[in-house]
């Protein structure tokens, strides 16, 4: 698709970026006396659609606003598929669990995926995986069989999580767009580091790493597996030899610091899109910036709701795109 097709969209996104919450707004929110005052400030900034919404409803409506804007700006929404595979695989996981337990659960599915939730649910319920896209069929069948025959929910999740990462990586690289490609790489790297650390801490065996770790360019999965089998310290030593050496310090600090570092890394990679006047990349960067903003607001609101101190909330907040 010609880059010039996105000139209008990028110009609109530049105006929209003015409404993104910056550091000063987060400072204002942090200094609020309580949770309700935070909601009031967010409402003043145009967050939410009505005055009587709960925090979760506000965050959901903000997410919906982003996707509504994208649907308005982009004719073929498949350009954003790299961001949406995760939603589909989550819904697939939820559908398998729902069919397995034969129970109706509320709010277990996510909106704005590529495939309709009903399609995924029907495919699982009718055991007809041909209704699913090709990249999902094999892993869906495997995960379904394991869940149904062994009841091993964890293994079912491991298979689908790896399938998610493999799909994001493969499709992200196939786009030929540097932002999607970098995003796919980082998503896989972050997940692999997490899997290796958790696996090493819980003493997982080789079979687990073979099933869970996904291939990527900037990490050697074989070396990471060997390190994870030896112990956490070995993982740190291996990471120090990669471009992710900075991660070691934050992983040692705490899991939440590492999560923050991961989100900040993605934001750091998309920052140059603020100066890109054409192509789909600034739109994709805006989506990630909004997701990051919503995540930070969620952290802040739950911190305020649980009366956490300002410093505790502050150290969990993500870097902003603007």
């Amino acid at each position, binding site marked *: 698709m010609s880059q*010039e097709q996105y*000139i*209008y*969209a*990028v*110009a*609109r*996104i*530049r*105006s*929209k*970026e*003015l409404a993104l919450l910056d550091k000063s707004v987060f400072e204002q929110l942090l200094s609020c006396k309580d949770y309700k005052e935070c909601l009031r400030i967010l409402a003043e900034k145009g967050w939410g659609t009505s005055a009587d919404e709960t925090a979760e409803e506000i965050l959901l409506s903000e997410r919906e606003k982003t996707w509504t804007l994208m649907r308005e700006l982009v004719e073929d929404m498949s350009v954003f598929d790299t961001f949406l595979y995760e939603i589909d695989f989550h819904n697939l996981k939820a559908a398998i669990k729902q069919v397995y337990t034969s129970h109706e659960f509320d709010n277990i599915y996510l909106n704005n995926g590529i495939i309709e939730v009903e399609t995924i649910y029907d495919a699982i319920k009718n055991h007809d995986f041909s209704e699913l896209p090709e990249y999902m069929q094999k892993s869906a069948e495997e995960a379904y069989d394991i869940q149904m025959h062994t009841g091993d929910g964890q293994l079912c999740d491991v298979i689908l999580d790896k399938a998610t990462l493999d799909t994001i990586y493969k499709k992200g690289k196939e786009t030929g767009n540097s932002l999607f490609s970098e995003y796919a790489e980082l998503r896989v790297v972050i997940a692999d580091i997490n899997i290796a650390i958790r696996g090493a801490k819980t003493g997982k065996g080789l079979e687990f790493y073979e099933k869970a770790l996904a291939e990527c360019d900037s990490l050697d999965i074989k070396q990471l597996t060997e390190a994870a089998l030896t112990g956490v310290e070995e993982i740190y030593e291996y990471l120090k030899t990669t471009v992710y050496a900075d991660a070691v310090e934050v992983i040692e600090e705490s899991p939440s610091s590492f999560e923050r570092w991961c989100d900040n890394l993605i934001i750091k990679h998309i920052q140059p899109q603020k100066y890109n*006047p*054409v192509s789909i990349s600034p739109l994709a960067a805006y989506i990630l910036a909004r997701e990051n903003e919503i995540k930070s607001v969620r952290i802040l609101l739950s911190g305020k709701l649980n009366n956490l101190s300002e410093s505790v909330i502050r150290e969990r907040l993500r870097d902003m795109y603007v």
Partner: protein
Amino acid sequence: MDNYGIVFALAGAILAALLSGIGSAKGVGMGGEAAAGVITEDPSKFGKVLILQLLPGTQGIYGLLIAFITLSQIGVLGGKSDMSLAVGLLYFGACMPMAFVGYYSAVKQARASVASIAVVAKKPDQFGKAMIFSAMVETYAILALLISVLAIVGIGSLNI
């Protein structure tokens, strides 16, 4: 073969207007798209983005000017249009700076304008600086215009 002089001269005039016009149409179109994007969110910026949109439009006017001068010089608009092949080729060559530089500078200026419109969208007070980036590209269109005008006018006084 001697009669082909006028054919080349006319072709040069047409190409100057044609390529510069295409470049400007493309450029103003790109600028317009970006401007419309900004106006959708903030209509108060109309005046500023309109100026940036119009900047790549000047090449089309320069091309028209070159075509007009050439047509007058070669007698298409009235007068005698007999000329040798050599003179015709000279007119053709004289029109080329405007034709090519006009096209490319309009397209490149449009890219700069689109980027400048993005600057205005976020920082309207920086409009002056943003406009300069785009206006810098104009220099080369003006240089091409100047050389084409000098060449076209000069050909008449050559003793060929």
